[in-house]
């Protein structure tokens, strides 16, 4: 087990030398990822899907940032853009004080060692024609850390670390259950002793009794190996439980960010509030107030003007009732017509500090 913890991380220490210990491991600045929509004979770009539209956050070493949102909100695209699996349209990712997007060739390859990803689907993310030993051993060999029997020893200790029998190295992915495959995916991700892992819905495909095993494993690995996680999930209870900070995304933007307990106790954005209230609680005598949102998430190809949440926002309607008629405007959404605040329709609210715990950010014109 100690082998894994003591794996050489030469590049890490050399970059660390030039890196200020106080500043965060990863800084994401105004990240934008647009996908072109092409139409017609000449495939001209007619519009863009703004999958990620100005996302910024910091992540410190051995901390976890949870990223939540509904399908299509851009949370997966954020993770993949940071790792350069999808090219960014604009913005910066600063890793240990250096601009990650400026790296090319060998330098990029060396840096990539420290940034890994765990995928949602443990079935399709493992090559069915490779043995477990090769799946986990390949990155070790590619990065020139070890070969031959030394590599095999490493694979064995990695398998043991994630709770699998080292003898499984000779087997193929189809011989394993979903939870075991996810453990293999985790072993592959930690094989290069990374400092940062994007966990993209790592437990949503697993059974309830297996989810907690995997979450505990990820937690132990973080304590032991000081890994920072970007934990992407749609299950709020899982994210709140697992993360130090939580960022809520809606239509390509972060609409609220705060510590896990703070976001649960004191949500400032009406979208966060409705998300929290929509989670069914394992209690047959529920007392909480449920806000059932009307309509559906709008298309990111054609997002609403101003605050993207305004057509579904209960708060914008409520505030309109108390405001002067000149400050409100009538809109139609989901077959309903109602009045909302004019400001919500016309201007996009900035992500700004709100009352509450220090560092609690939300993008809403109405809440304080």
């Amino acid at each position, binding site marked *: 087990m100690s082998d894994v913890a003591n794996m050489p991380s030469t590049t890490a220490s050399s970059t660390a030398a030039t890196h200020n210990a106080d500043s965060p491991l990863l800084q994401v600045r105004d990240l934008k990822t647009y996908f072109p929509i092409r139409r017609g004979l000449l495939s001209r770009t007619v519009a863009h899907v703004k999958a990620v539209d100005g996302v910024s956050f910091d992540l410190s070493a051995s901390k976890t940032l949870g990223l939540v949102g*509904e*399908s299509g909100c851009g949370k997966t695209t954020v993770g993949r853009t940071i790792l350069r699996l999808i090219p960014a349209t604009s913005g910066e990712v600063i890793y240990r004080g250096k601009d990650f997007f400026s790296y090319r060739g060998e330098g990029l390859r060396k840096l990539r060692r420290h940034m890994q990803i765990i995928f949602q689907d443990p079935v399709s993310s493992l090559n069915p024609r490779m043995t477990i030993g090769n799946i986990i051993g390949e990155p070790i060999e590619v990065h020139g850390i070890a070969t031959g029997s030394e590599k095999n020893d490493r694979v064995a200790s990695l398998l043991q670390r994630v709770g699998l029998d080292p003898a499984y190295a000779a087997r193929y992915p189809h011989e394993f*259950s979903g*939870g*075991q495959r996810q453990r293999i995916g985790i072993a592959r991700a930690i094989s290069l002793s990374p400092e940062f892992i994007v966990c993209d819905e790592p437990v949503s495909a697993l*059974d*309830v*009794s*297996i*989810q*907690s*095993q995997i*979450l*505990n494993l990820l*937690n132990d690995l973080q304590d032991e190996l000081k890994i920072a996680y970007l934990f992407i999930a*749609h*299950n*709020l*209870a*899982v994210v*709140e*439980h*697992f993360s130090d900070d939580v960022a809520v995304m809606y239509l390509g933007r972060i609409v609220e960010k705060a510590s896990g*307990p703070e976001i*649960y*106790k004191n949500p400032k954005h009406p979208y966060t509030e*409705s*998300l*929290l*209230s*929509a*989670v*069914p*609680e*394992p*209690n*047959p*005598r*529920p*007392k909480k*107030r*449920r*806000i*059932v*949102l009307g309509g*559906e*998430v709008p298309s990111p190809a054609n997002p609403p003007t101003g605050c993207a949440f305004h057509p579904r926002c*209960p*708060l914008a309607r*409520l505030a309109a009732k108390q405001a002067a008629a000149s400050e409100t405007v009538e809109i139609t959404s*989901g*077959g309903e017509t109602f009045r909302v605040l004019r400001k919500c329709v016309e201007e996009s609210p900035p992500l700004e500090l709100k009352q509450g715990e220090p560092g609690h950010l939300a993008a809403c014109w109405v809440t304080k």
Partner: protein
Amino acid sequence: MPDPLLQISDLNVAFETARGLIRPVRDVSLSIYPGQTVAVVGESGCGKSVTAMSILRLLPSPPSKVLSGSIMFAGRDLVTVPENQMQKIRGKEIAMIFQEPMTSLNPVYSIGDQIAEAVVLHQHVGSREGLRIAEQSLRDVGIADAHRRLREYPHEMSGGMRQRIMIAMALSCKPKLLIADEPTTALDVTIQAQILELLRKVQQQTGMSIMLITHDLGVVAENADVVAVMYASRIVETATVEELFDRPQHPYTQGLFRSIPKFGVTSKRLETIPGTVPNPTKFPPGCKFHTRCDRLNGDPLCSTVEPLLREVSPGHWASCHHAEHFAESPVTVPQLQHKREDYIPLATEVQA
């Protein structure tokens, strides 16, 4: 005292495979009363979907085979009724909605035609009347602009919209029993809340019964009257929802409750159930849960004799040798008529 709408007694279903007989449903007994919601909870492969499919006889035979047991519905045994009668029950008296709204709609027919097909078939009306009823059922499930939607195709709609259409289709013939197999698992939480709200509303209006198959204990808590927990092809515990959540008796149920992350709990470690769900081709001997159970270490009784469901307290059944109370082996089928009375409406207006 009303009679149960559906009464499954000692149902055993087997699949004949190259590697021998698999028993996905073993000795399952379950009653559903009019207007009741019964949740069947369990992890993948526990037999909950196979039980539901057996009710509607949707399993291909071979390989599937009902070894024994009966499924009584309105005076008829669904295991033995001839296929032509079964066709009249399927879709009309018992309807089913599936987990995947994507694959359970036909992509080449318009929404209107798909809903009207069942209506025309079961209610013996003309195609124009069928479309009118289809439009009405779309309105009932809260689809705006129903008239235009009738002519649209499944690919033009989002997941939540498709699931509404599935529900509209299932409800168009006013079934007495709706089997909902993981109806919201593929949906986002805000859409899930809308769909569950819709099912509750329809149930209040029509008094239909719902068999809700899910693995989400939150969904169970907020929607079910009675819960049956399945593990390794059997019901291991059944009780009213309040009783089950307040006093779970089976170690598997207890483990499930402990292992789900809850809001506002700061401890980073979750309790877990060790090991994995056993493979139905090689179930362990004795209690199927004993390999993962921490209740009584190495009691030879657990590893040799499979426990039967016992009534551990009135209306609460569990199959564990070490459930708190020891009772005689059951002589009756568990029947829980419980209906939640002090129902708290969840959707309240947002107050200032």
